[in-house]
């Protein structure tokens, strides 16, 4: 069991000397506000429409969607042309029943890179 000490004195010294401070190892800016399929929902296959709405404007041409299949295989999903700046759309086909994870990574208009996942089941 090893935990860094987080008292201000310790952090003062550690962060200054060795850049080992309180920093959390991730950042985030764009939030997924709504999605189809919804998180932990069930949808009918084999054709599934993907629709993601974010809280900020997204640079669609520099964002990515990836689908993890139940057998562990991965597939990059092509993004449709953006109709609204906060929405990404795609289409997944040939989906067999099982648990899938949609991984998204987006570039917000202000330059922030964010990522997340949507787990859903195809029946």
């Amino acid at each position, binding site marked *: 069991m090893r935990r860094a*000490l987080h008292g201000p004195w310790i952090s003062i010294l550690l962060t200054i000397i060795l850049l080992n401070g309180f920093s959390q190892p991730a950042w985030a800016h764009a939030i997924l506000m709504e999605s189809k399929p919804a998180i932990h929902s069930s949808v009918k296959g084999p054709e599934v429409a993907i629709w993601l709405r974010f809280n900020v404007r997204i640079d669609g041409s520099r964002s990515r969607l990836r689908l993890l299949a139940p057998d562990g295989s991965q597939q990059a999903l092509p993004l449709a042309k953006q109709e609204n700046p906060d929405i990404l759309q795609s289409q997944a086909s040939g989906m067999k029943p099982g648990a899938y994870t949609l991984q998204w990574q987006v570039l917000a208009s202000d330059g922030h*890179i964010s990522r997340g996942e949507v787990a859903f089941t195809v029946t």
Partner: protein
Amino acid sequence: MMLKLVDVFGYLSVILRAGTLVFQSLLLGGVLFVLWIARPTSEIADGNFAKVQSSSLRMLRIAAIGLAVVQAFYLYVNSAVLMATAEIGLRDVVGANFFISGSVIFVAATLTAALARPGRKLAAIWLAVLVTVALGASVMTNHAASRMEGRVSLIIVSSLHELATGFWIGGLPFLVLGLFVSGDRPTQWYITKRFSRLALVCVGVIVATGIGMSLSYIGSWGALYGTAYGVMVSAKALMLGALMVLGGVNFLLLRNCSPDAVMPRLRRLVEAEVGIGITIILTAASVTSQPPAVDLVNDKVTAQQAWSRIKPTWPRLGIEALAQSSANTPARDGVQTDSAPKAPPTSVDGTPLSPKNLADIEESELNHHWMGLLVLAMGVLALLARSGKAKWAEYWPLLLIGIAIFIIVRADSEAWPLGPQSFWATCLRPEDLQHRLAALVCIGFAVFELRVRKLKLENHPAALAFPLMCALGGALLLTHSHNLTNIKEELLAELSHVPLGILAVFAGWSRWLEVRLPAKDRAVPAWIWPACFVLIGAGLLNYREM
């Protein structure tokens, strides 16, 4: 690998954003200072202004070079991460908003560095144009630029906010420099009066635009304490309040005292203003790494959840628990300590904690509480020493050695002296090496502070190292990125850490003032920093993770 890359990038990007905001503010403040504040007047000899202008332009060049370097690094890092994670080429990155904005800032900063030289009359106009362009490009990489609603008005409000911040906080270092190089009272008085009038306007703009942005980005009182964004904005507001108090003191001094009485005090107060002001800018960089509070629909912490985490509770100081957590026993089911809760411990969402999590949390709390006890003792002794009624309390820096011992003993329960792994086996492991170096620094500070106090070295420049470290540590506590994997737990940790960061900043700058102000003006700051230590200790003693 992709996920790891974005994770590692997080903190670095906040640092780069912080660098951008600080240098951008210096650019704005510097250009305004050169073009307007230190504008020659017939009342004062030209030679005096020449010195001020020349040194200000030199500092402006340095700030411009700093901004260009930070932007170049930002462009490189952001592009590299995007290319690696989105699997695209440089040609595709070039059209991205951040790349265009960053490139514009880089070019504007580089040209500013080239033009900021004495004796170039036309350059003055170009400097104003260039910093305006840099400001505009910078605003295009903040929250306003990516909003779906009210985008244009938010961009305008953000621009005004950053402009006023730059003019005031970014101008303060130039004022300090101007006061230092001018040397004669009339020039000092002239530039200070002009700056004071400008600062008054800037404070009004900052407060008004800050309220406007808070209404848009925070939206409710609950989000003010229930989201990390709200908490960090509150921290900014609190420090701005402190800055306004210092500015208010300067304002009153300028209007009620003679130049000879004001200047020795004013210079020192402005130095502290610079420090706190830059900390506010660093905190702003941290705010930009978070989604606005209004967007967190389901992840706000309730007042009840916040209170249950911060309400005063007896600290976990049990020697038994200390020994057990040091004995490398991750799971301690059934072990009851004095402070063990009766109900099954849960996370903020009510999820029962696993024995491993519980053991980790208990150990962390134990560490915080012991550290709190030591810091509290330091604060109380420093207060006693200040009262003049307990000479022996002057030896409070010796408690830093106690902290050093605590770090060595408690930092890694697997390693020497309490764990099974020997000193030599762990001496090159980065974490252990860091902890032991930190302990050595603590010991160094103990010896150093004791010498400062006992040998009355307070007028020695080296006496400023300790308050600077304190203030810098607090600033670093407030400059961090946030992840969204466990938003509520992140926020609850924030609720305890942010006040400690603010107190450390106040402690550092009040000690700075105690050292720097004329002897007769030291009474107030001399009480503030020990009181901050006491509060930091109390905060640590009440620290909890469940």
